């Protein structure tokens, strides 16, 4: 794809490492918020060549990992009802609920379809008017516009057999919670590029000013991440804290106004429980009353039984308190084949990223 090779160019990588080494004088903890960035860091072994004093902490930006157990249980219970077709992103299939996962429900006869897009679920609803189609709406601000668009299209077509179980959450309130956590020391954030493609930088200004932390909106290729680290270290060494954009080819300060508009039309801000992290105020997106007939929780009277995370260690990993390899279950009871906690399920979960790149992790720091 266009310019992709350049953003993986080892020559650029080498010079960025040199420059980071040149300017680093103190120990700094930098958290990359997004699981996609964690994946790139592990896959390309980016941590090994950084100066000793720079520590990368891995953040909570893996929607599969933080979707609360009660929502997993909720979608499983819907998939077991007759006449319901459940549509979901593939990553959610193996996430452990309180007793089982969606895959087990599918094996037991539930009509569960793995879909690339909620818009595909809309088509299934058009083609199966005698059935109810429920899409499991998980993800951050990157994903919320497309589920909002599906609801708006269903509303326009009066497609009454379509609904969404919305577990969408927003990133900035989780970053604020991490700054308040006494066990996590974050000096700077690499903010998630694709979330910011939608939201722009406005939601990060307050966070940056209040927490006095540099925030660099960063992309996902190895060169993007190294440049993001360099931009963060430059600010830290100079004692500045600003919101800056490394990923300028895809992020504008104002974000995507059209995407924000449909997101705000359909969703309102609510408090939401994050798996492993507890309740984060103002972090959830719930379907507005105006569109309640497309809200599966309302339509099918789904009762959410709050359950705290089965595995406390997951929360400490998601907060950046401990590295995955410091978890006592890592690689023993908990592996990608048999995950105990959600960060081991998705390839973007920090634990799975470490596991799949374990040779590199052993070789480095």
């Amino acid at each position, binding site marked *: 794809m266009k*310019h992709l090779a350049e953003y993986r160019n080892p020559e650029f990588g080498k010079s960025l490492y040199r420059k980071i080494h040149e300017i680093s004088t103190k120990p700094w903890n930098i958290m990359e918020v997004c*699981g996609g960035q964690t994946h790139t860091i592990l896959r390309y072994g980016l941590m090994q060549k950084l100066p000793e004093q720079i520590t990368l902490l891995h953040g909570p930006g893996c929607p599969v990992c933080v979707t609360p157990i009660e929502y997993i249980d909720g979608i499983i219970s819907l998939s077991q009802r007759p006449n319901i077709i459940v549509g979901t*992103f593939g990553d959610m299939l193996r996430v452990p609920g309180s007793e089982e996962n969606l895959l087990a429900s599918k094996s037991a006869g539930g009509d569960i379809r793995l879909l690339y*897009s909620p818009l*595909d679920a809309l088509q299934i609803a058009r083609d199966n008017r005698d059935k109810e189609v429920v899409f499991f709406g998980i993800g951050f601000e990157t994903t919320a516009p497309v589920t909002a668009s599906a609801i708006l299209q269903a509303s326009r077509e009066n497609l009454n057999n379509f609904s969404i179980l919305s577990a969408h959450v927003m990133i900035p309130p989780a970053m604020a919670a991490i700054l308040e956590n006494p066990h996590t020391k974050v000096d700077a954030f690499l903010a998630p590029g*694709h979330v910011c493609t939608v939201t722009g930088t406005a939601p990060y200004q307050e966070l940056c000013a209040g927490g006095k932390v540099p925030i660099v909106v960063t992309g996902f290729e190895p060169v993007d991440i190294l440049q993001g680290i360099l931009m963060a270290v430059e600010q830290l060494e100079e004692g500045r804290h600003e919101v800056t954009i490394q990923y300028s080819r895809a992020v504008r300060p104002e974000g995507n106004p059209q995407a924000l508009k449909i997101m705000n039309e359909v969703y309102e801000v609510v408090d939401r429980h994050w798996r492993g992290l507890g309740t984060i105020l103002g972090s959830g997106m719930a379907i507005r009353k105006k569109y309640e007939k497309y809200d599966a929780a309302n339509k099918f009277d789904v009762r959410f039984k709050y359950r705290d995370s089965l595995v406390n260690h997951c929360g400490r990993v998601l907060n950046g308190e401990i590295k995955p390899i410091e978890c006592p279950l890592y690689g023993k009871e908990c592996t990608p084949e048999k995950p105990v906690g959600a960060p081991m399920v998705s390839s973007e979960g920090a634990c799975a990223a470490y596991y799949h790149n374990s040779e590199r992790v052993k070789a480095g720091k």
Partner: protein
Amino acid sequence: MCLAVPGKIVQILSEEPLSRCGKVDFGGVVREINLSCTEDAGIGDYVLVHAGMAIGKIEEKEALETLAMLKEISDLSKADNPS
């Protein structure tokens, strides 16, 4: 999950608001994509696609500027560290 893949718009299929859509080429694989949030993107433009929807346009100018900056760092670094 927040993976978004760049692709090139090769055809506009509908200009209906909400369901504006077109064919997007991802290095040879062509898929129908919702373009309602990228109204300013037309044929030949690159968009970032996530879960069936284009969430933003990739700015050629910005991409080239970033690369020029990286090249500058690289050239300076080579000048300082000849090997």
